[in-house]
C-alpha cells in the first residue's frame, strides 16, 4: 500500500488531459441502444427531408368517396376521415412535428440558458428573484399552463410551441443553474478570477463547456417531451390547426374513429411513441458518455 500512496520522488503527478471529443463518440457508439435510436431518428429526419419523394400520394388530396378505408394496396395505412392517405400525411407531418419540437426546445433554451447562467453565476438577489418566479411557474401543472397560454394567444402550432417552450424553460434553467453553481465553486475558477479574467471569459471558457453536457441531455429529452405535449394540446384542439397536420393532430383527429378504423390512430400513436423513445434513449446515451468523460476528466 505504501508504494502506491507515495509515488517515488521525482515524478510529478501526471496531468490528466481532458479526453478529446472522439472518445465521447467512441463511448456513445459502444452504447448499442443509443446507437439504434440514433439511427432510427436519423431515418425519421431523412423521411421528413425527402417527404415529397417518399409519400405515395399528395397528403392534402381528400376524396370524400372513400373515407376511413382499411389499409390496402392503394392506401398502405388506410385513409382518414376525409379520405386522405394516412401514410403520406404521417410522412409530411414528420416535418411539422420535428420542426415544432426544435422550436419549443429552442425557446426553452433561449430563456432557460441565460437565466440559468445569471442566477447560477451571479447569485444573490438575482438568483432569488429568478428562482422564486421559476418556482411559481413550476407550481403550475405544465399542461394547464400550456393550455392557458395557447388558449389566450389563439390556437396555432407556433403558439403551442411557444407555450411548451415557456413551460420547459424552468427545467433548462434549473439544469444550467445547477451546473454553473457546481463549476463556480471549482478552484480553477477562483484561480482564473485571481488572474484577472473577466466574468464573460470565465463563463465562456469554464462554465459553458461544463454546462453543455447536461444541457444537451436535457434538450434531447425535451425534444421528445415537446412531441408529447403537442399531441396533448392537439387533442384539446389547441395544437396544429387545419390544413396543417402534425403527428399529434393526426392522432387527435383519428382517435374518435378508433372503433371503426383503428389503424390510423395506432399508427400515429406508435410513431409518436417510437420517436419520443428514441429521444429518451439518446438522452440516456449522451448522459452516460458525458458522465464518464467528466468523471475521468477531473
Amino acid at each position: 500500500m505504501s508504494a502506491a500512496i507515495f509515488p517515488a520522488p521525482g515524478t510529478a503527478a501526471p496531468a490528466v488531459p481532458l479526453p478529446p471529443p472522439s472518445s465521447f463518440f467512441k463511448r456513445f457508439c459502444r452504447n448499442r441502444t443509443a446507437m439504434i435510436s440514433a439511427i432510427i431518428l436519423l431515418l425519421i429526419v431523412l423521411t421528413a427531408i425527402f417527404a415529397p419523394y417518399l409519400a405515395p400520394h399528395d397528403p392534402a388530396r381528400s376524396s370524400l368517396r372513400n373515407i376511413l378505408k382499411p389499409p390496402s394496396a392503394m392506401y398502405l395505412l388506410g385513409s382518414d376521415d376525409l379520405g386522405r392517405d394516412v401514410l403520406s400525411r404521417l410522412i409530411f407531418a414528420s416535418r411539422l412535428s420535428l420542426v415544432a419540437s426544435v422550436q419549443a426546445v429552442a425557446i426553452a433554451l433561449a430563456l432557460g440558458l441565460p437565466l440559468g447562467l445569471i442566477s447560477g453565476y451571479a447569485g444573490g438577489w438575482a438568483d432569488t428573484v429568478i428562482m422564486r418566479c421559476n418556482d411559481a411557474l413550476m407550481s403550475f401543472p405544465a399542461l394547464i399552463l400550456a393550455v392557458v397560454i395557447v388558449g389566450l394567444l389563439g390556437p396555432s402550432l407556433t403558439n403551442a410551441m411557444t407555450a411548451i417552450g415557456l413551460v420547459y424553460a424552468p427545467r433548462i434553467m434549473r439544469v444550467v443553474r445547477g451546473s454553473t453553481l457546481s463549476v463556480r465553486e471549482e478552484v480553477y475558477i477562483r484561480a482564473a478570477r485571481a488572474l484577472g479574467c473577466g466574468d464573460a471569459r470565465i463563463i465562456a471558457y469554464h462554465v459553458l463547456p461544463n454546462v453543455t453536457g447536461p444541457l444537451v441531455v436535457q434538450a434531447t429529452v425535451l425534444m421528445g417531451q415537446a412531441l408529447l405535449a403537442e399531441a396533448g394540446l392537439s387533442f384539446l384542439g389547441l395544437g396544429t390547426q387545419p390544413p396543417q397536420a402534425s403527428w399529434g393532430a393526426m392522432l387527435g383527429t383519428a382517435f374518435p374513429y378508433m372503433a371503426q378504423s383503428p389503424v390510423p390512430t395506432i399508427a400515429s400513436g406508435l410513431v409518436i411513441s417510437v420517436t419520443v423513445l428514441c429521444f429518451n434513449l439518446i438522452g440516456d446515451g449522451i448522459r452516460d458518455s458525458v458522465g464518464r468523460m467528466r468523471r475521468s476528466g477531473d
Partner: protein
Amino acid sequence: MKFCLVTAIVGVLLLGSPARAAGEYNTNATLIYYDAVSNQTLDPQEPQNNSSFAQGTLMAIYDALVFLNEAGDPQPGLAMSWDYNEDLTVFTMRIRPGVTFHDGTALDAAAVLKNLERSVSLGNRAGAATVETMSQIAAMELIGSDTIRIRLKSPSGQMPYLLGGQAGMMISPATLNESTFGVTIKPVGAGPYKVRSFESNVRTVTTRNDAYWGGIEGRPAGFEHHFVPEARARLNAVRSGQANLALIEPRQIGEARAAGFAVQINEKNSSWELHANFTRDTVGKLKVRQAIMHAIDRPALADALGGGASRATVQLFARSSPVYQEDLERLYPFDQARARALLAEAGYPNGVDVSWLLLNTNEYKQMGEAIQAMLGEVGIRVKFDVVDVSQYTAFRRPPQRGDLLMVRWGGRPDPLQTFQESSGSTAVPWGAAAPEIDQLIDQARALVPGDPKRLAVMHRLARVTTEHVSHMTLMTRSAVYAYKPGCVSNLPPYLATGNDRINDTKIGATCK
C-alpha cells in the same frame, strides 16, 4: 275568433296521441340523457340558455305557453287558446285553468303577467330570443283571472311562435323578484319534471311532477340531463349502461349500430350554414358566392361527414317543412367549370383568397377542411382563422374578423324568424343580400301564422334568399340518438326548433 276553435281540436289530438298501453312503460326508471349541450344556469331568459340547443332541460322543467307540433304549427300549451284583433296589434291569450307550479302556487294569468313583465324589465340583459319577443310588446293587462291582453307596438303575427320558445316559459311567481336572474333563479316551473339538483355545465337531476296538467301516464320517474362534451364518452356511457339515451355524432352511427344499439335520426329544421361578410369585396360579390355554391359537392359532403344523418340541401328548412321547395335544390348543382366561370366573370380569373373564421372543435374543423379542399380545386384559396368560443362572435360585431363563418343553424319556431335572423337586415349587420328580402319579411309579419298568404310569402323569401345567396346552406343536420333497442320511445322530432322535446320521452318496460 274562428281560429280559436281549430286550435282546441288539434290540441286534444296531440294529448291523446296513440300511445302504447300503460303497462308497456317502466314508470319507476329514470331517463338519463347524455347531451352535447350544457345549461349554464336554469334561467330560461339568461343569454347562455337562450339558444335553441339549451331548450331540452328547460322545456321539461317550465313547459311553455305554446307547443309546436311536427309540422311546426303552434298548439295550445299552458295557454288554452289565443287570438288576434283585425290589424294584428292586440293579442289575447286565455291561460289553461287548474294548472299549478311545482311549489303549489297557481299558474293563472297574473303569474304569466309577472313572468312577462320580468322578461321586459330584464331589457337587453336577457337572451336574444327573449329580447326580440319583448321588444314587440307595448303594454299588457289582465282580464279576469285567466286572460291576458297584449298590445303590440306594430302588427306582428309572430307571438304564438315566440311564446313557444324560452320567452313563453313560466317560472313560479313565488320565487320571482326583481333581482332573480341567471344563477339566483329558483327553478320552479309547471313542467312534467321537478328539479332535485343542478350543477352548472355538469348535470340536472329532476323527478316526475305527479301533479302535471298533461298527465303522467307512462312517464319515467325522473329525468337526468348530463353535459358530456366528448362524443366518445357519451356513446360509451350508453354501451356500459350508465345512461339510457345519448346524443351522438353522425360519424358514430356505424359504431353504435355495430354495437347493437338502436339509432334514431330526427330530421330537423337545422343545417350547416356558411355565412359571408357582404362588406368584403370578394365574398360581397354575388357571383363569387354563387361560385362557392357551385364548387361544393354537397352530396359527397353529406354522405362522407353526415354519417347517414344529413342530406345535401341549399335551403334552411327540412324536407318535411311546408316552406321546403324541391325546385330550389336545382339552382346550385355541383359544377366546378361553372364555378370557375363565375369567378372569372366576378373579376378573379386566377382564383381568390378568402379567410374563414373557424370554431375550434373537431366537428367544425373536419367540415372546414373538406370544404377547403373542394373550394381549392376551383381556385378559391381558403385560409383558416381558428378561434375559440370567446372570439367566435367577432364575425358579426367589430372588428368583424373573417370573410366566411360556418355556423350550425339551430332552426327557429317561426319560419319568418329564420329569415329575419339569417337574411333580414335587422339581424345581419351589413344588411340583406337584396332589398326585396326586407320587404317580404315586413309583409309576412303582418300575417297570422295559419294564413295561406303567409306561406306564399315564405316560399318567395326562400327563393330570393337562395338566388341572392344570403346564406350558403351545405347540408341538413339531424339529432342522432343512441339507446338500447326498445328502451326509449316517443322521442318526437320537434321540427320547429333545433331542440327535441324530452318531455314526453318514455322508457320501455323491459329496460331499467
